[in-house]
């Protein structure tokens, strides 16, 4: 009797999950179409479709004029970058929460954000002095490349600190992450101290994130880093489900715990590094989206991971529509929009949790 109820329950969950996948995919597609259609320059939906079709079919006769530049070189890369960064950050959040078995874990915990932030600050503040020659040749590449390397180096350092005899302790990693984060924060503060007025403003805007300035070049660098994460996540789902029982239990279930940990950390570091490098620091997507998904379909990572990707992509593309339409022709930093949505939600989540513990 009990077994039948359980089976029905699981089947029910799975059906809800499948529905959610289909539903979110459609919603995401719809939002993408809206995002490509909307902007400071109003272009009729028919014209947008015409431009996109012409691009797909290679019909160059229709590809003339400012509309085309706006749709193909400004909006489309921007929306695609939003989809990738949002999906990457949200999946990274879900992976970290699973790995640390802590619902409050955030992709920043592995040190990527603080390291990337430090490297970006260094590029902005010291770049003028030490990279003068190189900056002239690669003015747009120095910051993203610096941020990406900074994130990876910090994560690697953290991984080495937390790994003894082939075993990585997630608790050590968490604590060392806090320490390294504080150190990177202090050094970033030092850099902002020696920066001039102009550099300080650059730092501020960078740390609030933006999808502005997305280009096909940027996408061609970011996509090969984030897409593999999205493709490889099914491999991690079963392992993370096992880890929910505890590390030893998962090991005895035959799950290659160490390999799962190393792979998850590597993928998160790459994806978050690429996101931060291309869009600056976009807060809250990584922590909010997995929670929202977990609340609606449960903690099974086989659903949680893909749904988080879809949810994150939608949140970021949606937030970007707000960011660039609210103060037209100017544009809000996207971090302001995501945090305005994310922070109250996060508080609500905390309040819910405390009441559960207290009662």
């Amino acid at each position, binding site marked *: 009797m009990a077994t039948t109820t359980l089976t029905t329950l699981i089947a029910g969950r799975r059906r809800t999950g499948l529905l959610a996948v289909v539903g979110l995919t459609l919603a995401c597609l719809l939002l993408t179409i809206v995002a490509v259609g909307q*902007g*400071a*320059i*109003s272009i009729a939906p028919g014209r947008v479709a015409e431009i996109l079709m012409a691009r797909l079919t290679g019909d160059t006769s229709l590809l003339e*004029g*400012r509309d085309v*530049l*706006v749709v193909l*070189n*400004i*909006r489309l890369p921007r929306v695609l970058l939003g989809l990738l960064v949002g999906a990457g950050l949200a999946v990274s959040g879900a992976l970290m929460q699973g790995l640390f078995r802590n619902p409050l874990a955030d992709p920043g915990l592995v040190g990527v954000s603080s390291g990337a932030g430090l490297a970006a600050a260094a590029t902005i503040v010291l770049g003028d002095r030490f990279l003068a020659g190189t900056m002239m040749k690669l*003015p*747009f590449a120095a910051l993203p490349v610096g941020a990406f390397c900074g994130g990876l180096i910090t994560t690697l350092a953290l991984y080495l600190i937390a790994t003894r005899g082939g075993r990585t302790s997630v608790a050590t990693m968490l604590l060392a992450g806090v320490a390294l984060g504080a150190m990177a924060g202090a050094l970033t503060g030092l850099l902002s*101290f020696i*920066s*001039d*007025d*102009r550099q300080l*403003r*650059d730092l501020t*805007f960078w740390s609030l994130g*933006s999808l*502005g*300035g*997305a*280009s096909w070049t*940027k996408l061609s660098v970011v996509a090969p880093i984030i897409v593999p994460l999205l493709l490889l996540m099914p491999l991690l789902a079963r392992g993370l489900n096992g880890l929910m029982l505890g590390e030893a239990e998962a090991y005895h279930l035959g799950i290659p715990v160490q390999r799962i940990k190393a792979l998850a950390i590597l993928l998160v570091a790459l994806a978050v590094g690429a996101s931060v490098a291309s869009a600056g620091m976009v807060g809250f997507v990584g922590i909010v989206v997995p929670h929202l998904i977990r609340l609606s379909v449960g903690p099974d990572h086989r659903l949680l991971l893909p749904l988080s990707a879809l949810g994150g992509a939608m949140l970021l593309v949606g937030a970007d529509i707000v960011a*660039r339409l609210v*103060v*037209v*022709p*100017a*544009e809000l*930093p996207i971090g302001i929009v995501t945090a305005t949505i994310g922070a109250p939600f996060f508080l609500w989540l905390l309040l819910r949790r405390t009441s559960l513990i207290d009662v």
Partner: protein
Amino acid sequence: MSGSRTTSAHRGLRQPNRRELTAALALSAFGLGGLALSPALPGAALAQTPDRIVVAGGVITEVIYALGLQNRIVGIDSTSQFPPEALKQKANVGYVRALSAEGVLSLKPSLIMLIDGAGPPDAVSLLTESGVKIARIADGLTPEGVTAKIAAIGAAIGAGAPAERLAAQTKARFDELATLRSGIAKKKRVLFLLSLQNGRAMVGGRNSSADGIIALAGGINAADAIEGYKPMTDEAIAAAAPDMVLMMRNSSAHNVTPDELFAMPAFSQVPAASNKRLVHMDGLYLLGFGPRTPMAARDLMAAIHPEASIPPLKTAAAP
């Protein structure tokens, strides 16, 4: 004809609409043709006088308004706060270092004017790609820098001659200011206080715009041991011994009063405290480094030497 009959049967207003549509299409075709042709015309007069300008940089806006050519501006950035009507009349494209490429292009500019440091670089490169003419204006905190800036702005908008006149007039004012400055027997020490958050003094050091205006006004920057705008310790303030403290006038909230300032331990013992010399001036006027700068420096000079009765600039006739 048969097609139009069915539609007019459907709705009486159809026929004129179609005619309008045809007219509109013809007009757009004409316009598109014009657009396609205009870059091909060598040295066309149109290209000389861009009439849809988007400006990123407050000083550029100020100069264009001073030249009376503000009708050509369609968009400005949020630092364009002088004249005050600018922000009311024109679309705001956001902060000068956080422009949005599509936002700027949505104003259909024929010229985009960027002051040094306008950005972010990604947005600027997208704007460059769009093929709209872009003029980059160098910033400068010296009399030569200001006159060169005015001339460059004029050249970019095809108003070279009037801009040269404005530059010459500004130079004459700077020269007159230099004469006033040479008459100052003993230079006084001025401390520029950017903010006083939580009792922490943020001052304008070397190579800051505050440093530039203090020098023009014939003062000595009391914070020249510091580079740029930085917090300064209480002891260093006491050691800097300013004869006067200069702050920006706060437009909305309350200004720091002399009593509040000189009650603070750091300021209680400096020479300025003896007669409570705290002066507030409009921030943009003071630090803008545009055509109004000679007058601003004169006013600051008068504020530094209240006893000397510094005359107003003779050439500074009210516009």
